[in-house]
């Protein structure tokens, strides 16, 4: 990687006369440069490689989404949404229990994680000393890096051992995963709020906490929603933390969180491990539903974020 400064060095000789692009080709100092051809070839090859890599990434995304779309859409019908899984050996049925379960789990996790996350974000961006804020943010990053399966084991040990699997345990595990996402993005958004706004409010004699509550937080509100939505989008697709906490669920639609709740990701997981094509078709349909949900949440979050960013950028 460190080789080959020669080409750049010899090109440097011509810079004194600052030739235009057209003139450079015929300039006596540059024209007979024997390495130029090779350098341009290398350049072209590298540009091609980079472009190719980006194309591959987009192609893989397209491939995954297309296969989910094509295979999923044929299995989607009304039964899919309103019926529970068919009894063993029968065809048909749906994943209504999982849809309801995911909605409940994610809602409970959000109730737990969003307020705490936003409070942590407010603390780190408004109140804490910079060194303290930095270490809290570091800890949040670490929490974000804990493998989700380990989170599952943790909650299993905390809430499930000695009891039964429950929707509460599942939601708690999801909330742990959500917390760092919400807190981090809340911090980012709040630190975008111009300090002139804070100072104006403080100069008028408004107390610190009221400034935060009535000036800073409303200014950043849509950004805070973004963080919450990103958190929801992330945990809606999580399987690993639910395996140990809320996976042995009934096939009936249940809204009782003291029992294990079914969920879309866990259903996809178990359906995909089965051998029958009918199960696979259902798995694809569930995957389509899940991707649709996650992508919609992401798009909404991005739009909101872009909007609040533009607004804050304008006031700065």
């Amino acid at each position, binding site marked *: *990687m460190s080789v*080959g400064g020669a*080409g*750049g060095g010899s090109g*440097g000789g011509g810079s004194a006369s600052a030739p235009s692009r057209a003139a450079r080709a015929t300039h006596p100092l540059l024209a007979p440069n024997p390495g130029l051809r090779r350098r*341009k070839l290398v*350049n072209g090859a*590298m540009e091609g*490689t*980079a472009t190719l*890599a*980006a194309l591959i*990434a*987009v192609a*893989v*995304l397209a491939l*995954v*989404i297309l*296969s*989910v779309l094509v*295979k999923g859409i044929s299995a989607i019908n009304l039964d899919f949404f309103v019926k529970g899984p068919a009894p063993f050996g029968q065809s048909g049925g749906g994943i209504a229990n999982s849809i309801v379960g995911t909605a409940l789990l994610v809602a409970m996790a959000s109730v737990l994680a969003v307020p705490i996350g936003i409070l*942590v974000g*407010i*603390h780190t961006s408004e109140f*804490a000393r910079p060194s303290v804020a930095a270490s*809290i943010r570091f*800890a949040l*990053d*670490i*929490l974000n*890096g*804990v*493998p*989700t*399966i*380990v989170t599952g*084991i*943790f909650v299993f*040990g*905390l809430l499930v051992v000695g009891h039964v699997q429950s929707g509460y345990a599942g939601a708690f595990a999801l909330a*742990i995963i959500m917390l760092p*996402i919400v*807190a*981090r993005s809340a911090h*980012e958004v709040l*630190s975008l709020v111009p300090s002139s706004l804070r100072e104006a409010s403080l100069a008028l004699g408004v107390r610190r906490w009221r400034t935060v509550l009535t000036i800073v937080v409303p200014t950043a509100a849509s950004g805070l929603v*973004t963080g919450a939505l990103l958190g929801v989008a*992330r945990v809606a697709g999580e*399987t*690993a933390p639910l*395996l140990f906490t809320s996976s042995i669920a009934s096939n009936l639609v249940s809204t009782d969180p003291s029992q294990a709740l079914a969920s879309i990701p866990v259903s*996809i997981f178990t359906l*995909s*491990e089965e051998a029958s094509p009918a199960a696979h078709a259902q798995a694809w349909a569930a*995957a389509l539903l*899940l*991707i649709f949900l996650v*992508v919609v949440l992401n798009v909404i979050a991005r739009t909101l*974020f*872009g909007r609040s960013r533009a607004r804050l950028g304008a006031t700065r």
Partner: protein
Amino acid sequence: MLASVASMALIALLVYKVFDQAGESISHFGLGFVGSSVWNPVTRRFGAASFIYGTAVSSLIALLIAGPMSVAIALFLTELAPMRVRRPVATLVELLAAIPSVVLGLWGIIVMAPFLNGTLEPALRSALGWIPLFSGSASPFGLLPAILVLTIMTVPIVAAVTREVFQTVPTELKESALALGSTRWEMVRMVILPYAKSGIVGASILGLGRALGEAIAVTQVIGDETGIHASLFAPADTLASRVASTYQGATSTLEISSLAYLSAILLVFALIANAIARLIVRRTTVRMRPAGPGPGPGPAVTVAEGKA
């Protein structure tokens, strides 16, 4: 504030509880657990070696593929692509990160595995069969599909972080190189890459952390088998996927405790990887740009691009 203290306490509790659950297994097997490759619920002998091997091989090779590829994507997005294309492609790459792992795993089982089994693995074996990695009979489940799935999962993360690091390279430096007559690639090699080196390393380790801990998608494609095989085609298992696949089948408290032991090992690996990565990334971005990078949504392309 109380919320912050609570989240700090949560982390401590998490680490404590995982090790606490592993306690029975730790006192039973000690450190020999790490060196043993047996996993037999019947004789109640458990060991982590084959899973550590699977985890290391799958995530390191995935990173070897994903790292250069992500750098290339990030270069394309910051230097090559026309302005109109940059935002949409960057968003698409980030959406790839948002695909739930269970969906990727499903795709891996049903779409990718037959292709690997029928086409790619026989081709690799006839071309490179003399390398032990590519010997052995093809199978739909094994390390190779796991590596590919992990690659797909890590590329968007590494690419997104690398792109942000590249955007912090001062335009003057890039323009100076171009003004001295270097080609664009020479500018990349001599200005951008050295400048962003530690950021790229940090991003890669971050990706490694994600790959290490991925349980679901790997479980779906790796075949869940104990033992260390040289071949990438053979079914294997990783720390995370073993925990995930045994979730309902654990028969004794010792086995459950051993699963927790596996989680504890995994937790240590992941924490080290993440801590290093975050420290590196933070140091570079703080040094270059006071306002940290955005959380998930990429920041608007605000860097004034003199040369497009």
